[in-house]
């Protein structure tokens, strides 16, 4: 059951020993891009901050879809769980210290990951998709019903995070939130790169390619996948909590099916199974969305649809994967 043949192994093309050098370059590029974004778009930091939060969700989705081959349309459940947990901790229990809010979000995301992982991994193919859809709707309805804690359809507002470490207050322009987000992102990206290159990451990649063979080797397929789901949940939870901290509201749409589907679209647009693709896809998608939907939200939907069809037909490896293939072909041609 190889669900994501879309992502032929991009990383296979590169010798493993050079991997950590590429990761250092990757981290460098993120930091440079972050600094450039800060100075180029000083009035648009809110958008950049939103990109960071969504990016964490898409990275976490890449862990289960790109590395484990689990097709899910319910990943926003993990993100929303983190967002609501951080928000409720701040509003109801008065825990407004941002770092502990993020930690709570990660924990809640991990728990949500465990729950939805156990449910979703029960099925294969269509059943898996349907289970993931049912999970996101259940979370959505539950959050809607528990309006005493979540604010229901009005959303959870009144989150007022303290200054980070008591030093850096959240300002009106979102500078603190932006820098905080970039730091979170760099740390998580570094951890995830180490994770996916670890033996455990390799095992997950093996499961995606051939679960029967992996279990014949003596590894437990299900336990590995659930473990990955929990990790992925923690990452998505951090993203949700960061979103709650930076925007100071949590809306029901963070737990929506649309949010899940969009995350999947971004991931596939960029390319699955490399973590870098998540960056490309999210930035291109959200940026594009910001421009087009300002003009007309329905044209935006048509364009996303056309974009999706085009990606499936012409660039099944996503933007990043296709770019890597082209660069390689060029490199080979020169030799």
């Amino acid at each position, binding site marked *: 059951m*190889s*669900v*994501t*043949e*879309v992502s032929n192994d991009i990383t296979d093309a590169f010798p493993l020993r050079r991997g950590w050098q590429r990761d250092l370059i990757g981290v460098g590029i993120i930091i440079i891009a972050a600094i450039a974004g800060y100075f180029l778009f000083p009035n648009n930091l809110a958008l950049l901050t939103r990109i960071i939060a969504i990016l964490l969700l898409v990275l976490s989705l890449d862990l289960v*879809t790109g590395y484990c081959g689990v*097709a899910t*349309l319910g990943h926003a459940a993990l993100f929303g769980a983190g967002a609501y947990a951080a928000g409720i901790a701040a509003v109801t229990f008065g825990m407004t210290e941002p770092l502990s809010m993020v930690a709570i979000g990660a924990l809640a995301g991990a728990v949500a990951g465990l729950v939805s992982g156990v*449910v979703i991994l*029960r*099925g*294969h*193919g*269509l*059943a898996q*998709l*349907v*289970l993931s*859809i*049912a*999970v996101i*709707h*259940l979370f959505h*309805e*539950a959050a*809607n*019903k528990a309006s005493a804690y979540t604010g229901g359809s009005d959303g959870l507002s009144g989150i007022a995070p303290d200054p980070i470490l008591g030093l850096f207050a959240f300002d009106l322009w979102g500078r603190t939130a932006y820098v905080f987000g970039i730091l979170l992102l760099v740390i998580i990206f570094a951890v995830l790169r180490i994770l996916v290159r670890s033996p455990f990451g390799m095992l997950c990649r093996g499961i995606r390619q051939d679960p029967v063979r992996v279990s014949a080797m003596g590894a437990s397929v299900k336990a590995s996948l659930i473990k990955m789901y929990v990790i992925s949940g923690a990452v998505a939870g951090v993203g949700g909590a960061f979103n709650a901290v930076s925007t100071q509201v949590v809306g029901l749409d963070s737990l929506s*099916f*649309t949010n899940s*589907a969009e995350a*999947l*679209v971004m991931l*596939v647009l960029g390319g699955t199974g490399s973590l870098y693709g998540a960056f490309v896809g999210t930035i291109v998608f959200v940026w594009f969305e910001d421009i087009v939907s300002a003009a007309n939200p*329905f*044209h*935006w*939907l*048509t*364009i*996303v*649809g*056309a*974009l*999706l*069809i085009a*990606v*499936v*037909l012409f660039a*099944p490896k996503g933007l990043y994967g296709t770019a890597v293939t082209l660069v390689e072909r060029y490199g080979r041609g020169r030799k």
Partner: protein
Amino acid sequence: MQVFFSIAVDALAYGMVLFVISIGLSVTMGLMRVVNLAHGAFAMIGGYIASYAARDLGLAYGFAVILAVVGTIIIAIPLERFLYRRIYGAPELTQVLMTIGITFCVIGIANYVFGPTLKTIPLPAELQGPVNLGFRSIAAHKIFAIGCGIAVALGLWYLIERTSFGVKLRASVDNTAMAAALGVRTKIVYAASFALAVGLAAFGGVIGAELLPVEPYYALRYMVTFLVVVSVGGAGSIPGALIACLLLGAIDTTGRYLVPEYGEFFFYLAVIAIVWIFPRGLLGRAK
């Protein structure tokens, strides 16, 4: 008793509409193994065409239904030829993305052409108002929907079990390569059953317009429901789809009547429970 009766009628009507729309999806999914998330979009296109024909052109209801079915099939044929054929046998993720893309496009275009408002399909005089059954009266269009559902179920049963096309269809579902080797022209069987599925979706979209109102987000809102029905019933199984529709229709309607504040919570809880116990659907066959 009164409440029970109204729940039962509503559940039956809703379940039958679900059945008419999703049976086509079930057949194509069993036959072509395509996770077609755009199926609801075809039902929506049917609804829009019927609404345009009946309301704006003033045609009779029967004509509007026929026009909707034919029109939707005509729209779907190039899509099958140029887009769907490329994703037969592709991994689920690819199919999901492609068909979600088609759905988004259809929603955007429908909104552009027809605007974001609800579209009604005016019912003929015979289907308006209640019908007195002696002890209770029921809305006529619900009886009509139930009747259509039963007719579709019987018709499909006859088509698949008793005709030579049905034999070829079943053979292709069971083993496409073997059927092709024995001289069944599977490409034509594929195309015919795709057209049948789309036509049924459009038909269901029209007759169910009172229960599932036609608007641009129709395709996305009910897409999940149709997919759930197929998954619960088991792809490719007509009795399975029928049972699933009646069961899910009953659960959804009862939930809406008795605990409306929980929305679709119980519906999805039931879905998880059923799929958990029967991962291949109620009557799905083992791979």
